[in-house]
């Protein structure tokens, strides 16, 4: 009897594994699947992040990170032009802990940032993306694959980022 149960369990496992395979195709990106929160409290799965076939930038930041805020402020100044020119979308992921995660929305609005901001209060996405130091910026192609990344920020680094987006749009390989 025990054996039969063992075997049945085994088949069950295999079938659920296989069953899941089909479900997979609905995923729109190669990103790990982790739950993030939007600024109005909704839950969003990271593997559904996309920019409808166009390049997507994911940038990790926090309220306590000075270079991150510099980077995002400098991008905010040119973001409209970037979107118009390349169709790129920026998602800024805040890894602020519960101390400050509820302060992110007033901060972002106060700064008049136009791009999307998501919250990763448990740092699940940060860990899944192997991020150590912030700012850490990822560039994803239209299929949701990470094609380029950069850590740290110095004035002017955003110029390299938009050049990478342009290269990506022209179908070039991203070699520096």
């Amino acid at each position: 009897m025990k054996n039969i149960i063992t075997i049945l369990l085994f088949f069950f496992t295999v079938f659920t594994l296989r069953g899941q395979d089909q479900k997979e195709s609905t995923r729109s990106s190669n990103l790990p699947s982790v739950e993030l929160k939007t600024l109005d409290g909704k839950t969003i799965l990271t593997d559904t992040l996309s920019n409808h076939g166009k390049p997507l930038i994911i940038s990790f930041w926090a309220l306590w990170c000075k270079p991150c805020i510099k980077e995002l402020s400098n991008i905010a100044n040119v973001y409209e032009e970037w979107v118009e020119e390349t169709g790129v979308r920026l998602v800024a992921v805040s890894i602020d802990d519960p101390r400050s995660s509820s302060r992110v929305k007033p901060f972002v609005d106060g700064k008049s940032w136009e791009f999307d901001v998501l919250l990763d209060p448990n740092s699940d996405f940060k860990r899944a993306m192997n991020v150590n130091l912030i700012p850490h910026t990822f560039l994803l192609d239209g299929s949701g694959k990470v094609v380029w990344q950069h850590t740290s920020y110095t004035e002017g680094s955003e110029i390299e980022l938009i050049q990478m987006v342009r290269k990506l749009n022209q179908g070039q390989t991203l070699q520096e």
Partner: protein
Amino acid sequence: MKKTFRFIITFGLISCFIQVKSQDFIQHAQVSGTFQADAITYVNDKSLHINDSTLNGKRLGMNGFALIHYDYKNFSAGLRYEAFLPPLLGFSSDAEGSGIANWFVNYKVGDFEVTAGNFYEQFGSGMILRAYEEWTLAYDNSFNGFRVKYKPTAGIYLKGLIGYQRDYWVKYTDGNRGIVKGINGELNFNELIKKMENSPFRLSIEGSFVSKYEKMPTKTIIRPIPPEGSYEVYQYKLPENVGAWSTAINIGYSNWNLMTEYAYKNENPSALNNYIYHKGQALYSILTYSRKGLGIELSAKRIDNMGFKSRMEETENVLDINFLPPLNPLHLYSFATMYPYATQPNGEMGVHAGIEYTFPKNSFLGGKYGTNFSISYSLIKDIKKEALSPEIPIDSTGTIGYSSDFFAFGDRKFYEDLKVQIYKKFTPRFNIIAAYFNQVYDKDVIEGHYNEYGKVYANIGVLDMTYRINDLHSIRLELQTLFTEQDRGNWMGATIEYAIAPKWFFSLGDQYNYGNDNVDEQIHYYNISFGYTHQSTRISLSYGRQNDGLLCVGGICRFVPAYTGFGLTISSNF
């Protein structure tokens, strides 16, 4: 015969399974990882009284970790290796050693997600449960056990977990450590009810329950009893199970949002609260209003006896089950963080207000490029504690400790902090940040002294100027000054940075404690550093003197001793 048959069947099945899956497992799996190593070589320094004997032969310290992730569809697994050989100065000697610090496997089936091994978790804002990792503090209170997440329908999120927490390299079987169980449920009405999906009205509620089980020893104390001069042997009643619960509500309408969380903890006599039977309570509430160009935030918090660790006798920065979010925001300039606040779990009450405002472009104050203005104020005081009777002093061990009016501030001010900051862009190439801070810091309470130092009153000014020479070259000058008549007196500091985006970085800085009463302690803390970044690999080298003080990240602080040395940090991922 039966056994052989069973073996063949099982073996056959496994091999079939492996053949089917293995190709996928290798071809379609993603393996990724990251590592970081921080090393410092310490040198002797007469001004800091550092010599061969104080260094005790440990001339080189190294903290490093590597993390490897394996992802295959809905399955993921990871390993984290850590090495502290030996730990850098200021880190706990318990960290010394190396090995696999963490591992996990995670599997998602439909709306279920199961994790076995080590995991991080947070219920609500963490006031009764939060496990997290902070590398700069070598802090890791991850759970080792099982966690299940279940989402029965859109808008309902359920979690359950059981595990014990990490205490550096100590094995579970060595030393007493509690087992923590917890459940959490969240209901988001905007996701649950189709009609509310795009409504300006937002509502969500959350509830959690956490319980700690710990085998309790027999603990006694000899204490005085009336009449004067007589004593008794008192045996503590130590609960083996301590429960805590919390509930939170989030209400929003259009640009407004109000989040309130209340947490309660049953009596939990421990080394942290001097073994009193007082119940724990915490309330945290934050109201925000924001629209484009303006963000306003008001928050209030009360904490009463909310220290909660999974070992009764623990007082160090390990085994915290919960996290008590500090109310005051973190500052970004070094002088403004010289006197940092750390949450007082035994009791504190505070308020905070912050405004972030951007004067629009082409307005009188906005100028051509807009001006950003921010102001923030925090005040944190003790809670009001009343003695239970005239004979029993407050916090007497083995009693309820005290009584406390929930809405009354105590008399003692722990911390006060005012910040005013302006960011102004003058040309596309030149901008200035000017900031002023006024702080009151109760050194005795925050650093755990017994009325030795009193309060520190500090005024701090910062001027931070950035000039872009061209698209890629930039130069930044940061000037800071701190005035105080207490503690170590006045400071001034300057840092100059030159950067060539996106790869090169060079900086030179000095902090000078010119106002120290002791002439021998009027020290220059100079520093020279260099950084190189290639994509996600960063190498930085530095040489200089490090000022001693508290390094605080989140709610946890670590004391960093003064040292002089060469530092090297390498970080990368793949």
